[in-house]
């Protein structure tokens, strides 16, 4: 590249701030990484049997899986909010010994292989599990039920919500809460009228992430809940099952999951871009 053309490129950016200069070679691995993500997505879109797409996606087993997935992912997102927001409050606002250890434990499902999570759930809540006697007394059977799907999804998705909520709480700080207290607001009122509204955008993106993670859950679900059509066979399980018998159906359903993921990512990023208060 000649000096003149370099100067020309610089001129086109006149008026823009000058960023830190990057060595040119950095763009090569960066591009490779981007291709690694993009090429498979393009490949799967290319493989879709478009004329039969509608028919494949609306077959009875597909619809059952789709319905179950939406139902369980919604339920587990609700569970994540119910359990995760108080956890985030304790982690962000609490001060007691062992807090750091506690945070590590809470985030463990994030790094744990989902199959291991499912196995762990099975040995806690399964028919021969740790809590089996108690569950038997209550007459509750969890393993291999829709409830098990929700539990498995909540287990893996909870850290996403806790992380987002805790981050939002730390960013919001406590200054509004302190002023609200001096205005006479009891702690309960401060929580519902000040803290939660302030972190609502953070909670929303956390909930969206948790929903996406629940929707994509496979390993823990299969291990703990099995694969019963209409009861525990969610969309990812259906995709995996159809992969052998009807690859076209698998691809069509996979595309549905890709579409949901794109919507989720755009939704969360868009929110971040606008900047939450």
């Amino acid at each position, binding site marked *: 590249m000649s000096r003149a053309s370099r100067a020309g490129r610089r001129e086109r950016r006149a008026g823009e701030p000058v960023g830190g200069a990057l060595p040119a070679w950095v763009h090569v691995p960066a591009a490779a990484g981007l291709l690694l993500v993009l090429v498979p997505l393009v490949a799967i879109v290319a493989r879709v049997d478009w004329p039969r797409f509608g028919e494949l996606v609306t077959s009875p087993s597909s619809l059952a899986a789709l319905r179950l997935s939406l139902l369980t992912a919604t339920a587990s997102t609700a569970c994540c909010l119910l359990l995760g927001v108080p956890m985030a409050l304790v982690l962000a606002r609490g001060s007691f010994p062992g807090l750091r250890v506690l945070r590590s434990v809470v985030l463990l499902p994030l790094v744990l292989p989902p199959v291991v999570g499912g196995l762990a759930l099975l040995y806690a809540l399964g028919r021969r599990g740790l809590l089996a006697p108690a569950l038997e007394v209550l007459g509750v059977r969890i393993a291999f039920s829709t409830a098990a799907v929700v539990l498995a999804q909540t287990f893996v998705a909870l850290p996403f919500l806790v992380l987002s909520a805790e981050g939002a709480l730390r960013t919001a700080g406590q*200054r*509004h809460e*302190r*002023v*609200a*207290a*001096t*205005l*006479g*607001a*009891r*702690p309960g*009122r*401060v929580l519902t*009228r*000040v803290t939660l*509204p*302030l972190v*609502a955008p953070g909670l929303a993106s956390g909930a969206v992430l948790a929903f996406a993670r629940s929707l994509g859950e496979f390993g823990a679900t299969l291990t703990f809940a099995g694969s019963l059509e209409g009861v525990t066979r969610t969309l990812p399980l259906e995709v995996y099952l159809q992969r052998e018998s009807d690859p076209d159906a698998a691809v069509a359903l996979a595309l549905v999951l890709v579409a949901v993921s794109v919507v989720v990512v755009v939704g969360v990023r868009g929110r971040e871009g606008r900047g939450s*208060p």
Partner: protein
Amino acid sequence: MRHAPRGLAVDLDVPPGEVLAVLGPNGAGKSTLLDLLAGLLRPTAGRIALDGRVLTAAGATGREVLVPAHRRGVALLAQDPLLLPHLSAADNVAFGPRSTGASRREARERAARWLDAVGAGHLAARRPRRLSGGQAQRVAIARALATRPRLLLLDEPMAALDVTAAPEVRRVLREVLRGGQHPERPGGVVLVTHDLLDVLALADRVAVLQDGRVAERGDVHEVLTRPRSAFAAGIAGLVLLTGRATADGLRTADGTLVAGLVDDGCPPGGPAVAVLDPAAVAVHAADPGGSPRNRWRVTVTQLEPRGRAVRVRGRHGPLELFADVTVEAAAEARLAPGDEVHFVVKATAVRVHAAGG
């Protein structure tokens, strides 16, 4: 009251209805003091009582008391208005009354009344993000006062505002705190500030904090004209002349006229203070004549060396004045206590501000 980790040990009182200004360098313990008063921080030892009710007691023998922030009747107004972004201005002001048990209707009425009092009635429906800095701070003042606090804490309330908004907010605070027309005035006010104008406009008394201790205290005039602490001397060290504002200056109680630039919002006839920098005062052995409108015959009472300058203190009737002149000028004029000299100041070097009291 002590807070050992932050190195604070102070003993202060605010008489009912008065405004105590707390001055001090950064890190002197001003914020710690406010946090302790608001109940947001537990002291290591000490006692805080408000209208005879013990709010905090710690360290000494006897029972520990820490009334939580929401039951103290102590409202806090910070540098940042900290309005709740999801509520309208009116709902922000109504938040306090609603929190303390007022009905929806009563809270709304009180909010409307206080928004009018701070000149923000027309902003009631706005969200905080659509308010300017000065508007937001006025709404925050209304919000703090709508709780009918028995003690109001002001933490540098004008420090984050731009030069046009600060005087406006200061005027509003002056009206609501000192105007006397509001029956719901707070019982007492503690004002933390760096700004001399805040002290002049709002305060009855001053306490200077330094290294967590009260370095000096007294009424405003005394501390600002005869500062004993280095900090007060640094921000003050100014000549202050109190009196009543006129159209183009100020008239002191003994009738001396001081020509100066009068602030907007300082009505003629109202209590005011003329402020001038002693370095702007020229000292002449003989009446120089000429254009400067402030010429005072002064008897020198004292000469103080101040680095490269000499502070010439003197009296003009009952008024105490001082001027900073160079060492060379002082030597040349052979100034000595007892001399009769003339102090000369341009009217443009004198600012006249509305004053407390």
